[in-house]
């Protein structure tokens, strides 16, 4: 004959089992999925290889770039945003890793010079066009003057020939 466990004990065991399973499932849900290559490359394309010249990180074939892409994957898995990852790279490796330089210091020139150059160019073009309009149009060449004694003599001679003189 086996003794039946008291009802309270069964009830507590059931609650403990439910609690444990909930905890296990929660910890399974908390494990974030590994970011895909596309997600990693989406961030990497906004960064440049710190050691190669002008090579975006997503297409850079070196071992160092592979390490940096893996670093991006780790940061994404840890829940970092794109901006946080970019800021981390700037702190570690300097501004040159950014595809678009931040607007401070001499970097301002990158943003200011092109529009200024365009404005100056438009200004010069407008000035040149205005000066062309202002310059006097050359008058058409005057017909040969009949006052010229040589021409008059020629015409008289021709008329005389026509008359048969």
């Amino acid at each position, binding site marked *: 004959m086996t003794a039946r466990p008291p009802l309270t004990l069964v009830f507590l065991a059931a609650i403990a089992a439910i609690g444990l399973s909930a905890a296990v499932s929660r910890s399974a849900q908390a494990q974030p999925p590994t970011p895909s290559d596309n997600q990693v490359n989406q961030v990497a394309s906004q960064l440049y290889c710190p050691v190669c010249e002008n090579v975006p990180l997503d297409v850079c074939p070196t071992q*160092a770039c592979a390490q940096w892409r893996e670093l991006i994957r780790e940061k994404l898995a840890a829940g970092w945003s794109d901006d946080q990852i970019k800021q981390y790279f700037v702190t570690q*490796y*300097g501004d040159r890793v950014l595809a678009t330089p931040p607007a401070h210091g001499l970097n301002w020139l990158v943003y200011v010079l092109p529009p200024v150059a365009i404005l100056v160019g438009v200004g010069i073009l407008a000035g040149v066009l205005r000066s062309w309009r202002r310059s006097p149009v050359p008058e058409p060449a005057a017909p040969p003057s009949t006052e010229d004694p040589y021409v008059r003599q020629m015409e008289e001679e021709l008329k005389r020939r026509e008359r048969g003189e």
Partner: protein
Amino acid sequence: MQGGRRFTWGTGAIWLLLLAFLLLLFFGLRRTQQGPVQPGAPAPQFSLTTFDGQDLDTTHMRGQVILVNFWASWCVPCEQEAAELQQAYENYKDKGVVFIGVNYVDTEPEALDYMARFDITYPNGPDLGTRISQAYRIRGVPETYIMGANGNLVEAKIGPYASLAEIQASLDRALGSTTE
């Protein structure tokens, strides 16, 4: 005056802008063409936090010879000299020589793996924002600079050391120039 060009403030401003732009270009190009810091010149002073959290400042190390080695875990030639540098550190650490490893654009786990692989025990830290390598105007890694006790650069080694003897000869020269 007939035939002469009129000066306007607009034209003056354009020329001024152009001149400023050319000057910027000139100084930028001159800086990139300068090459690494040359021996005899004052060595750039810097501070660095090592991987184990120790704060180093070379300005507080006057009177000692300082060997600054730029390296990275992805740099294959760096591996050629790693063990020799560690050996030289062990031979010279009690002779007034400080070794500092500057880890250039690297990832920390790989840098720590590299240090463990070559049993490197002298202080090493990341070159945050590449400030130190820019100050030394390095072209790549490995590069090693030896600073004399007076703060001037005694030697610049571009590329890896070929042997322990070469490192020791450089350090002896630096120590010799200090005692002279």
